[in-house]
């Protein structure tokens, strides 16, 4: 009884398959946001014990590279007014690699540097003693914009990464992409930063003038 109908062709037409797939494809193309977990890494200092007074660090003024940003996003770098951050990373590099008064350990490190980095050393007695002592200090105001702060931090990090990368003979982009998962990558990372710690001090922003 149920078989009364004459059999028609039972093939499913596949001609519109591409159209359906296209439709779905376009939907995913539009909704997709390829997750970007990229950014600038920063390690915060450990929390302060209220019972212990903050340690009194004696550091020579010449070993600190001061960057001040005020509430109007204006820059004061080592006591000089700067319009933009373009030359900042070069200044930072020159400061880190100054080698004013290197001790024996850092004199050795200096000798191991490639010639291009050696050329950056000014041996200026009023700048940093050696990379192990050099600290870059960034101080902002509570009214400074986050964008400006990140721009400054970006430039300082860039100076360090370029030094690291140049030491091991790769580009800064390649150096930053190192994950340290394999032994050879870890070795490259360690050789790059050995003896030159990324010492960036981010001071508590002050409240005045915001």
């Amino acid at each position, binding site marked *: 009884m149920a078989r009364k109908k004459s059999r028609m062709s039972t093939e499913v037409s596949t001609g519109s398959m591409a159209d359906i797939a296209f439709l779905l494809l376009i939907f995913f193309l539009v909704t997709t946001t390829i997750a970007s*977990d990229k950014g600038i890494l920063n390690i915060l200092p450990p929390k302060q014990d209220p019972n212990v007074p903050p340690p009194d660090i004696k550091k020579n003024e010449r070993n600190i590279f001061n960057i001040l940003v005020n509430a109007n996003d204006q820059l004061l770098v080592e006591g000089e007014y700067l319009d933009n951050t373009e030359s900042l990373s070069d200044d930072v590099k020159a400061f880190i690699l100054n080698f004013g008064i290197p001790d024996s350990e850092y004199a050795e490190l200096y000798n191991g540097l490639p010639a291009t980095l050696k050329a950056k050393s000014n041996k200026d007695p009023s700048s940093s003693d050696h990379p192990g002592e050099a600290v870059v200090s960034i101080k902002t105001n509570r009214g400074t914009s986050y964008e400006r702060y990140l721009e400054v931090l970006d430039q300082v990090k860039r100076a360090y990464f370029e030094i690291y990368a140049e030491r091991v003979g790769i580009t800064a982009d390649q150096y930053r992409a190192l994950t340290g998962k394999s032994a050879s990558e870890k070795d490259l990372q360690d050789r790059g930063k050995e003896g030159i710690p990324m010492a960036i001090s981010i001071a508590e922003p002050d409240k005045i003038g915001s």
Partner: protein
Amino acid sequence: MGKFKKKTKAEISIPTSALPDIIFMLLFFFMVTTVLREQDLLVEQKLPQATQLQKLEKKSLISYLFVGKPKNVSLYGSEPRIQANDVLINTKDIVLWVNQEKDKLGEAERDQITISMKADREVKMGPISDIQFELREADARKLMYASTGKVEN
């Protein structure tokens, strides 16, 4: 000079029978890579640009904090607020939130928690430094300033 006309005309037609397969392949690629946004953003998000970006390897260790001006100004005001998960929280709730996030991780990974701070570029340093202070209190010291890439010139 009939030299160039010697070839017999062959039938030129691109076979389209493999087209659905190619399209399906693309479709699957996008289906796999797509991350449908799980959270509704309650704050404005225009990430700042930077050049020295690093990528984090372990996604499971990352927790996100969104900072920015609330979208619904009439309800939440125009001052920058912090969004964690699906709600707006106050600065002093951060420690609690970090501890909740840490509980989701395994015992061994707890101290490796990384906070990815997605802050709007319009935010001032005041709220940012308050957040950093709370994160120090909560002992979540790995912080990432999420930003988008900038083309260097």
